[in-house]
């Protein structure tokens, strides 16, 4: 089982406040890894460090390493733009651009320099199929992405990420704004996606983590309290705090 | 029928205003005829409102300051608006004195103009210009666009920047009357137009190829050209040698009386005329 991402002694600060405390973690290729924990525990912060979206917040500081395929992403030589092409992200709120469905998916490839209409069409179709959205939208590719339902929008955003051909997909509570049926669809989609991609998901929904993930990390107050195979975390948690959280005693 | 009536009325207006004008000019562009017994200081009181020509305004303000210094109980308010506005205001009775920097037209309402000073208009160029004099005909041709290069009037080889006042300006009217109009020419449409003596002065002072015309009071920093070999000086204007001269008027609705009369007499008297001379205007001929 190959390790895709190695996190080594990672500390992260917002100004003087420490948000992550010496995190050590190996994330495995072609698996779904879930990060759970109460609000403010640092799980989203950790997720956003993996494609350096954390750079957007001013006055922050990183210590330690995040190695993807052995390469430290915080090294000066790393091109953050290339990193983000390799590490895609799906957000809590579906955020399609105010463009057509086609243009939403074609956006990434266009930026990478693909302008050939046929090639783009092919990428758009494949990506939408992978995101299990093709059948619903193939007749209306020129309609605005904003006209779709919330669940469809989220799958459109996933298709948009897939179109740039990433290796890792980060999902930040991708279902929190969706209804149960849409949630189920996204979960099925994730199971498909892990065949080709490494998926990391932040979720508040413990059933979801239990259903879809292979590994689960429980975080609290900036620390990775427990990290193991999902089955173990939910059945035989080693840490008392983790057990309390999972059984619903706090959080 | 109606057209005859109309033209008759026009003739009437023409006659009456011409007569008035003639009367004023005869009576005087010489100073106030019968010297009034100077009233005791402090005797006069009240408020005089004046409005009209912006060319008259600076002079009127100085005269008013001197007048109120002499009679502290009198207030004189001077405002601008332009000659036409001055005529309209006095005709409508909204002010006590109107001001105009041009003759009253026959199409305008009946008012009584009283000359308070005269103003010469000088042809000015940049100080770097080597030219010293021109003929009126040359100036007319420059303004009509028939002469476009300084070398054609004896200067350097450079395109002339023609700078003029805007349509309706009193300064422009006198210029048109004595210069372009005298040769049946018109100021060309592609001349540059500015709306004050000050603006013309700054334009000509900054552009070494410019020619313009301004009141005598505004020639500082500029080079004035002799016109037909006559320098634009107050003496030459007063003696009638320098041709481009206009009259500045105070306007009243009826024969002035009370403090309005006192003020106009003051302006036309030695004290007022001294101010006019100091400011570069041509004073009325003093006895």
């Amino acid at each position, binding site marked *: 089982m190959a390790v895709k991402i190695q996190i080594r002694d990672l500390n992260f600060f917002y100004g003087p406040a420490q948000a992550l405390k010496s995190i050590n973690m190996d994330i495995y290729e072609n698996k779904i890894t879930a990060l759970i924990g109460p609000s403010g525990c640092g799980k989203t912060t950790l997720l956003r460090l993996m494609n350096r979206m954390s750079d957007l917040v001013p006055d922050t500081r990183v210590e330690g390493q995040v190695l993807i395929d052995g390469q430290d992403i915080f090294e000066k030589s790393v091109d953050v733009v290339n990193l983000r092409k390799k590490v895609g992200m799906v957000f809590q709120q579906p955020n399609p651009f105010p*463009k057509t469905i086609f243009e939403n998916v074609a956006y990434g490839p266009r930026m990478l320099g693909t302008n050939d209409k046929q090639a783009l069409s092919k990428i758009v179709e494949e990506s939408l199929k992978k995101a299990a959205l093709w059948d619903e939208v193939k007749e209306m590719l020129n309609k605005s992405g904003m006209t779709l339902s919330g669940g469809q929008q989220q799958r459109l955003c996933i298709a948009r990420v897939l179109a740039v051909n990433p290796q890792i997909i980060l999902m930040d509570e991708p279902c929190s704004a969706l209804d149960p049926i849409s949630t189920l669809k996204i979960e099925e989609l994730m199971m498909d996606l892990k065949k080709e991609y490494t998926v990391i998901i932040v979720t508040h929904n413990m059933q979801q983590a239990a259903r879809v993930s292979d590994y689960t990390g429980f975080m609290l107050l900036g620390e990775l309290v427990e990290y193991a195979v999902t089955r173990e975390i939910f059945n035989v948690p080693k840490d008392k705090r983790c057990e309390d959280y999972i059984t619903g005693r706090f959080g | 029928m109606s057209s005859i009536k109309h033209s008759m009325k026009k003739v009437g207006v023409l006659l009456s205003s011409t007569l008035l004008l003639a009367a004023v000019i005869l009576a005087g562009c010489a100073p106030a005829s019968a010297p009034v017994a100077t009233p005791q200081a402090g005797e006069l009181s009240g408020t005089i409102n004046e409005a009209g020509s912006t060319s008259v305004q600076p002079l009127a303000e100085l005269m008013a300051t001197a007048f109120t210094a002499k009679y502290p109980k009198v207030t004189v308010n001077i405002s601008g608006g332009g000659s036409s506005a001055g005529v309209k205001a006095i005709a409508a009775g909204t002010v006590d004195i109107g001001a105009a920097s041009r003759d009253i037209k026959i*199409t305008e309402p009946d008012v009584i103009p009283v000359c308070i000073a005269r103003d010469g208009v000088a042809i000015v160029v940049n100080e770097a210009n080597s030219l010293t004099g021109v003929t009126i005909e040359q100036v007319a041709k420059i303004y009509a666009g028939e002469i476009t290069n300084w070398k054609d009037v004896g200067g350097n080889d450079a395109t002339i920047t023609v700078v003029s006042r805007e*349509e309706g300006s009193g300064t422009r009217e006198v210029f048109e009357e004595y210069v372009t109009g005298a040769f049946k020419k018109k100021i060309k*449409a592609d001349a*540059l137009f500015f709306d004050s003596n000050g603006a013309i002065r700054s334009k000509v002072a900054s552009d070494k190829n410019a020619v313009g015309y301004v009141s005598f009071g505004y020639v500082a920093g500029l080079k004035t050209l002799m016109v037909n070999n006559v320098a634009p000086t107050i003496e030459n204007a007063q003696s009638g040698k320098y041709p481009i001269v206009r009259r500045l008027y105070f306007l009243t609705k009826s024969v002035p009386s009370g403090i309005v009369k006192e003020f106009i007499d003051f302006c036309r008297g030695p004290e007022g005329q001294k101010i006019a001379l100091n400011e570069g205007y041509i004073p009325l001929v003093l006895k």
Partner: protein
Amino acid sequence: MSKISDSVLQPGCELRRVYDGFWRYAIYLFGAISFIILLLIALFIFREGYPAFQKIGIWQFISGLRWDVSDQAYGILPMIIGSTYVTIGALLISVPLGIFTAVFLTDVAPQMMRSIIRPAIELLVGIPSVVYGLVGMLMLVPIIRQSGHGSGDSVLAASIVLAVMVLPTIVSITEDSIIAVPNAYREGALSLGATRWQMIWHVVLPAAKSGIIASIVLGMGRAIGETMAMIMVIGNSIIIPDSIFSPARTLTGTLALELKYAAGLHWNALFATGVVLFVFILILNSFGFLMLRGKNK
């Protein structure tokens, strides 16, 4: 039941209703006053301008090439073209500059620079028009003259001065509409590997499009209406400019230059020019506000 209806009928309640009604109508009245003032101004301009349209003919007035008061020739085509050129020229400079500045302020500049540049631009609004004119006259015009293209008073000089004057309008409205673009769009683009520039160009600006167009239209209204600074740097020649170095005259410039001495048909013709301007600006502003409203929907 009976208790409630009793309390509704209490005299205090009646008084409150009168009081409330009074204020409602008072506010209507204040709202109406500003509209009535506009209406009166329009009415006055039309009344004074109407005789000119009647005597000259609307078409002859608008398409006439000559403006010669001594000949009673009143055609404002050169001024319409002059105003149009200057406005277009100003927008060609101020729109790119304004959009870049707004983008710079919202998405690029560090907080320090932002807190210096934004007030500086807002300060531009407070500078009197005459000061712009003076700076243009004493600095810009001589520079253009020294470049060897005529007297320096020109469409170019006017466009540059005007561009600076409309810049705050364009920057502030564009900035507002860029700020209104949800951050999620930015994150979405960046997470796909967009560079900051690609994000701004492909996602942020298109999303802010209607606000930007509104800013341009409102800036245009300001540009056409601007007078004082214009007459100081444009030369005011009554010709159709044949290059950016040529002098020209604007519609508002004609009014400002000639109104104080005008009488008779000249007076009416100047007000008729005002009518043309009024209609121009009315159309532009309605368009601009429609765009703004479209954005807020």
